[in-house]
């Protein structure tokens, strides 16, 4: 089934490449991927629509999570959320077709953003199925060109919003949403919450010293 996954990541060179490469290498099937700024400076937000069974979706999340630049991952498929996509559709519109198309645009609460003698550009924003439904109807008139942005998603109300401030994740927000950070069967705070106090970063010599024999 299709899953919608949201991931937050540092806005650094190569991050998109890392994510795309991961999907290619692990043979995950992406339906759509969108990326843009989040509310936090330096943190981008990606929304993926991925096709796969439960195990694959867990793997997608765990593997994404493993990327050093990824700060949080969440599967919003089963959460109350708003999912939207934008499409621009250039459709043939001559003679009697034109008024029929305008009616459809009204019904679908889409809008006409460009008018030519024999074509119209229609802009529609909404859930994917609504865009698909309008597209199917417009095919009867002849679609010349189409572009879609892919889905973006946001959880409703007090759901999980992990990005706050430059350093990514605020402690309390993550604590609320922590169970979504990881695949459902795996119950672990593997990526623990950033500590507020100053960390001491051990050098390689101060890790567990090696004892060479039993």
């Amino acid at each position: 089934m299709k899953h919608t996954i949201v991931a937050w990541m540092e806005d650094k060179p190569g991050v998109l490449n890392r994510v795309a490469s991961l999907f290619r290498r692990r043979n995950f099937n992406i339906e759509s991927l969108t990326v843009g700024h989040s509310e936090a400076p330096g943190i981008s937000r990606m929304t993926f629509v991925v096709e796969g069974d439960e195990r694959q979706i867990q793997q997608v999340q765990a593997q994404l999570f493993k990327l050093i630049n990824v700060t949080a991952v969440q599967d919003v498929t089963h959460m109350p959320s708003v999912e939207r996509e934008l499409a621009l559709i250039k459709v043939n519109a001559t003679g009697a077709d034109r008024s029929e198309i305008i009616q459809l645009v009204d019904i679908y609460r889409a809008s006409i953003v460009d008018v030519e003698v024999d074509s119209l550009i229609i802009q529609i924003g909404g859930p994917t199925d609504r865009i698909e439904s309008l597209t199917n109807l417009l095919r009867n008139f002849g679609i010349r060109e189409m572009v879609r942005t892919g889905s973006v998603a946001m959880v409703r109300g007090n759901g999980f919003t992990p990005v706050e401030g430059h350093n990514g994740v605020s402690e309390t927000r993550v604590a609320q949403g922590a169970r979504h950070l990881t695949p459902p069967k795996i119950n672990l705070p593997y990526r623990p919450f950033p500590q507020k106090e100053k960390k001491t970063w051990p050098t390689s010599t101060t890790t567990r010293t090696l004892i060479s024999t039993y």
Partner: protein
Amino acid sequence: MSERKNGAQIVWESLLAEGVEVVFGIPGGATLPIYDALAKHEYALRHVLATHEQGASHMADGYARATGRVGVCLATSGPGATNLTTGLANAHMDSSPVVAITGQVPTTLLGRDGFQEADVHGVTMPITKHNYLVTDIHELPHVLREAFYIAHTGRPGPVLVDICKDVQQAEIEFKIPDSADLDLPGYHPVLIAADPDAIGQAANLINNAGQPVIVAGQGVLIAQAEAELCQLAEKANIPVITTLLGVGAIPQTDPLSIGMGGMHGEAYTNNAMMESDVLVVIGARLDDRLTGVFGTFASKAQIIHIDLDPAEVGKNLATDIPLIGDALLTLRALLPLVEPNEHPAWLGQIAEWRTDTDFRDVLAQETEELVPPFIIRQLWHLTDEGNCIVVTDVGQHQMWEAQYFLHTKRRSLFTSGGLGTMGFGLPAAIGVQVGRPEEPVWLVAGDGGFQMTMAELSTVVKEELPIKIALINNRHLGMVRQWQTIFYNKRYSGTPLFNPDFVKLADAYGMPGLAVRHKEEVEGAIRQAQAHEGPFLIEFQVDPFADVYPMVAPGKSNADMIRRPVPVEPLEEEG
């Protein structure tokens, strides 16, 4: 306190601040400033010059595995860096903490296909834990700090830092970055035990198990949880199987140790794994060489999987109880909840299976022939029963080593597991010997893999490393030849080798060598090598058609093994 330093100086001073003592590398156009700074400022580091960058990366890998510290390798841009990639992929597969520093063309030439430019940042992205391209001198101190931190924390892995030449030459006010200034919002590798509820469930499962088995991987060694593993095994009398990289997690002479499992694991070992009802997997990836075809693996077993990396749990096999956390802390939490148990019937069953294996063992048979298992077992006897470090290459000899050398010490076998990199052996042995100079290091290699990186013999001699080399020469790419015998109707396509005279070759590099053709010469040769102070090469000329058994055919279940042939004159009890 800060001083004006250039990028090259910052590299060395950062390495020193991280506690680095040895760097393996080869200079080149894009690393000239770095190498110049090393000479000019006489930094207190040992630089081991390799003959090929692949060698340098395996040396760093071997050093890291042997010491548990970060191994560092250094190469120039373009071909220097692409030569490192095999070693990086190898370190990535086997979770080895390596930091690779490469030079890159100046920022002004980036993207213009300048001389010796390659997109190293892009090339190494999927084969490193993380990587960096440094185009601004101000980033350099933080990047180096982060690189080391990422390499050796959490699940260890290689990190590459690609530094543009003009960045190496640029100057800034430098001080070692304060830890609080580092900015890794997506990386918090704190060592914690798994979820207590899940640990409780796991203990419950173990306590009610009739036929439990532990599979111990390299994660046990990395977490240094060997003692806890043995305690768990002893407390509940659970037999322990190791993976190839997990060898040494439990002394292989321990009654509860039932050897290495998988494609060339012993039949009783694989039987135990396949017939178990509870399988406790600790720090192992459950890759196809261990499990055989995934669908049939341990189908009666409930699987408890302890791993630090959530992406490993459930990747290949559905897990019943995932325990995501540090192996050491998780085992410590699990131990008090596990009840003492005897499992007499189960252990008896395994012992019975074992009789059949022992009966087929080539070493139990009277033969005049110089069989590789005999060489390996002799080596084990003559090194005070395994009181040495063994590094292997990849191939038949590697499997014979794993079967016949009984490792009783942890971190005493170093081998390329996940990637199966032929050519790993010699350079890795160099890294191991540099990291652990006091201990005897034996390299067991095949003639095929040895020749892939044998140019590093000059490094062995130059650095005065007393590595003893046991070269198992069957004049073939033996493992491939074995598969051609079994699965490709004996069409030996590309597998027979033309070999040099290895003894003369050793001599040419200025180290002694000896060729051995007969069984009775083995002991003398090994003793002679041990008595010699410096490096020594023994070439064992063996039957080209000796095969490694038992074997699980690719795409087959572990229950479906090709067994060792039954001895020619069967004994009475052979039914």
